[in-house]
Each structure stands twice: as structure tokens, then as C-alpha cells.
């Protein structure tokens, strides 16, 4: 397991970096949970074929979680230089549409939205950055773990009984013994 975990690092870092990049760029960052789940899937497919054949659901979850954490870190770091670009994109194309929609539906637009449109972009604080990073790491790890397990199940032609099932079977059989 430990040897296998070492082999999982490189795919996790590559898939995580790609997902982090896509999750931080304007336009592609609106794809919500697609990138972390997709990164988990990709990471499993990047594992060499001979190793992939031995991956169980739990390995997929670990690989996915590592991928999600690296994606969150890459995204967090890239968001620092890309934040002004993202804000510019939102201000020019997205927020005016939102403001129109909110006003048409007879609601009061949030004051933050008006402030941003008037040029007052709220600056991110250092604790805020670390809070966001931690939150993203937890959420991305969970979603990418899901992607990892799904990928493991999709890559196996016929699912052999996993170590966990065998362990459970042996537990059950030991219960029946007098």
C-alpha cells in the first residue's frame, strides 16, 4: 500500500495542477464541482496501467483526495495574480446581467454587488485567503475522492472482490465458527 501511495503522487499532482488552473481562470471557473471530480477521474487514468489494475475503491479515494488538495492549493495560489482578471471579467460581463435580473425580479440587489460595479473591489485579507484555501481543500478533496472511486470502478472490467470485501468475508466466516 505504501509503495502504491508513492506511485500515486505524480498523477495526483498533475491532475490537481490542471484542475486548479481550470478552476481559477475566468470562464472555466464557473464549472463548479466538475473540475475536482474530473481531476479525481483523470488522476486514476494517469496511473500506469499495471498499477491501476491493482487499485481498489479505497486507493481511488486516497488518490482523489490527494488530487483535490493539490488542486485547491494550485487554485489558491493562482487566484492571487488572477483575481483582478477574474473581477474585471465579472464586472464587465457577469455582474451587469445579474443586476438586471435581480432588478427585473423586483428584488433589492445586494450592496456588495453595487459596490463592485462602482469600482470598489473588496480586497481579500490574509486570514480570508487561508480560510478559503482550507475550505477549498476540504471540499475539493471530498469531490475528487468521489471522482477517484468512480474512475477505479470504471477502469475495472470485472470487479474482483476487494481487500475490504475479503476481509469482511473472513470476518463473517469467523463469526460462524463455533
Amino acid at each position, binding site marked *: 500500500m505504501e509503495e502504491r501511495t508513492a506511485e500515486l503522487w505524480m498523477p495526483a499532482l498533475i491532475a490537481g495542477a490542471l484542475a486548479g488552473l481550470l478552476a481559477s481562470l475566468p470562464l472555466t471557473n464557473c464549472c463548479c464541482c466538475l473540475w475536482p471530480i474530473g481531476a479525481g477521474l483523470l488522476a486514476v487514468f494517469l496511473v500506469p496501467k499495471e498499477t491501476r489494475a491493482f487499485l481498489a475503491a479505497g486507493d481511488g479515494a486516497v488518490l482523489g483526495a490527494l488530487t483535490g488538495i493539490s488542486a485547491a492549493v494550485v487554485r489558491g495560489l493562482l487566484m492571487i495574480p488572477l483575481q483582478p482578471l477574474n473581477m474585471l471579467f465579472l464586472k464587465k460581463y457577469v455582474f451587469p446581467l445579474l443586476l438586471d435580473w435581480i432588478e427585473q425580479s423586483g428584488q433589492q440587489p445586494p450592496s456588495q454587488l453595487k459596490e463592485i460595479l462602482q469600482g470598489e473591489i473588496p480586497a481579500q485579507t490574509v486570514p480570508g485567503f487561508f480560510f478559503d484555501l482550507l475550505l477549498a481543500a476540504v471540499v475539493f478533496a471530498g469531490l475528487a475522492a468521489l471522482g477517484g*472511486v468512480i474512475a477505479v470502478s470504471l477502469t475495472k472490467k470485472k470487479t474482483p472482490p476487494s*481487500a475490504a470485501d475479503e476481509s*469482511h468475508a473472513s470476518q463473517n466466516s469467523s463469526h460462524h465458527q463455533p
Partner: protein
Amino acid sequence: MVAGYMATTVVALSVAGAALLAPWLASRGSGLAAGLYHSYHQICHQNPSRCFVLFGHPVAACGRCLGIYIGFLAGCLVYPLARSLFSARVPRPRMFVLLSLPLGLDVLANMLHLWDLGNGFRFSTGVVWGFILPFYFLAGLTDLILRRLAFRRPTT
């Protein structure tokens, strides 16, 4: 395994519940609402035209994401009836593809401006897809826990 299952269900309930709680808090002028909206912004675009409106404010997640959270919660609740909590067996690939198809097609059609069937439909496709996800997540978790236990068990 039971603890892992319970923790997953509680987290799923909290995630779905907090998304619905945010508009209620916002309607009462609570400062917690901003924190909740910000938290969900990590994984959801929160476009108000794609969100359900409750208490005069949009839900913290879009219709599709809310559907996924509620589907995931429903899957967690059904899981013990369909699978043993001690089994790491995952659903067949064709089942995953079948349940992902409505969501995938709707996302693609929305992106290509082929159709826009509204938030109700987005929510439904999210529920269908979200329903199968715990069958993977809990299987992975069970596999990890059981192998950790097997590793710790002394060999005779």
C-alpha cells in the same frame, strides 16, 4: 463503518440544509448568511437566475447543485437498504453512465443553447445524479476503513 456512514449522512444533511438555510438567514439580516453564500461559492457559480428563491433570496447553491446535494442525501438514506455497510462493492459502470446521462445531456444542451428547461429540470437531473454518488463515496470509505483495520490486526 457505521461511524463513517453516519458522518457522511450528517455532512450531506448539513450541506443540503445550509444551502436552504442561507436565504432564511439573509431574509432576517443575519451576518451568517454572507459566510454561507461565500462558502458555497467555492463550488457553485450561484447565478441567481439558476437558483431557487426562498424568503425573497436565492438559495446558496444553483438548482442543479442543490439537486445533487439532496440526491446525495437521499442516496445516503437509501444506502443501508441496498448495500451492507461492510461492503466496498461499487455500482456497475452502466448504472453510473445511465444516471449521469440526463445531467450530462442537459449541461451540454444548456451550453450549446439547444434548450433551457428551467431550474426544476436542472434540479431533477441533479437529484438523479447525486443519488448514485454515495454508492461510490461510501464504498471507497468502507474499503479504506476495512483495509486499515486489516492492517492493524496482528497476524498469527
